[in-house]
C-alpha cells in the first residue's frame, strides 16, 4: 500500500534558523512528488513538483530535494510569514491522478 509519512509533526524555529522537513514514501514506482503549503482554514497552495531522484527545485527561502526514498524541504533563514503547514503528496501508481497526502509538518517561525 502506498504511504506518505512526514516528520516532524511540528517544528518551531526562531527567525533565521534554518532547518529541513522530511517526507518519506513507500510507493511502487514513484511518478512524482508534490509539495504544498497550507495556511489555517485555507486550501493547499502548490509549491513544487519533483519528478526524479536527484532533482532539486528552489523558490525564495525554500528548496525541495528528492531521493529514491524521501524528499526534503529545506527552509533557509525562515521568516514569520513562512509559518504554515507543509504537505507532501504523491500520485498513486494505480491511479492516473489521485494524490495521497502526508499528515503535514506544522511550522512556526517566531520573530
Amino acid at each position: 500500500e502506498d504511504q506518505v509519512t512526514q516528520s516532524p509533526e511540528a517544528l518551531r524555529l526562531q527567525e533565521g534558523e534554518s532547518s529541513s522537513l522530511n517526507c518519506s514514501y513507500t510507493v511502487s514506482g514513484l511518478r512524482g512528488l508534490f509539495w504544498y503549503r497550507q495556511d489555517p482554514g485555507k486550501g493547499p497552495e502548490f509549491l513544487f513538483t519533483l519528478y526524479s531522484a536527484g532533482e532539486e527545485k528552489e523558490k525564495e527561502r525554500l528548496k525541495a530535494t528528492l531521493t529514491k526514498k524521501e524528499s526534503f524541504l529545506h527552509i533557509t533563514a525562515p521568516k514569520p510569514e513562512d509559518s504554515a503547514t507543509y504537505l507532501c503528496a504523491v500520485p498513486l501508481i494505480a491511479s492516473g491522478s489521485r494524490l495521497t497526502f502526508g499528515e503535514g509538518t506544522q511550522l512556526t517561525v517566531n520573530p
Partner: protein
Amino acid sequence: EPEVTQTPSHQVTQMGQEVILRCVPISNHLYFYWYRQILGQKVEFLVSFYNNEISEKSEIFDDQFSVERPDGSNFTLKIRSTKLEDSAMYFCASRNRQGLTEAFFGQGTRLTVV
C-alpha cells in the same frame, strides 16, 4: 492569476439535509477533483472527474455523494443526506492535463453538520 473558486466558504446544515458545494475550476483545466480534510487530519481524495464522468472515486465517496458539471464552468459536489461525520473542509482542485502536473486547490468550503 487564475484560481479555483469555491462557494460558500462556510455552510452549516442539519443532519439529514442535502447540501451542494460549488466550485469554479481554472478555465482551461480538464481534470477536476474533490478532496476533504476533517479537522486535524490529512487531506483525503474523494473523486476525480474528466470528460463529464467520474474517472475514479474513493471508499469515502458512497451513494450519498454525487458530482456534476452542469455547465462549462461549474463543478458541484452534492451530499444527499448529511451525517455528523461529513463535517470537514471540502476542497475542489483542477489540473490541465493528466499525469504528473500539479493540481491547484480552492480555498475550501467548511461544512458543519449539526
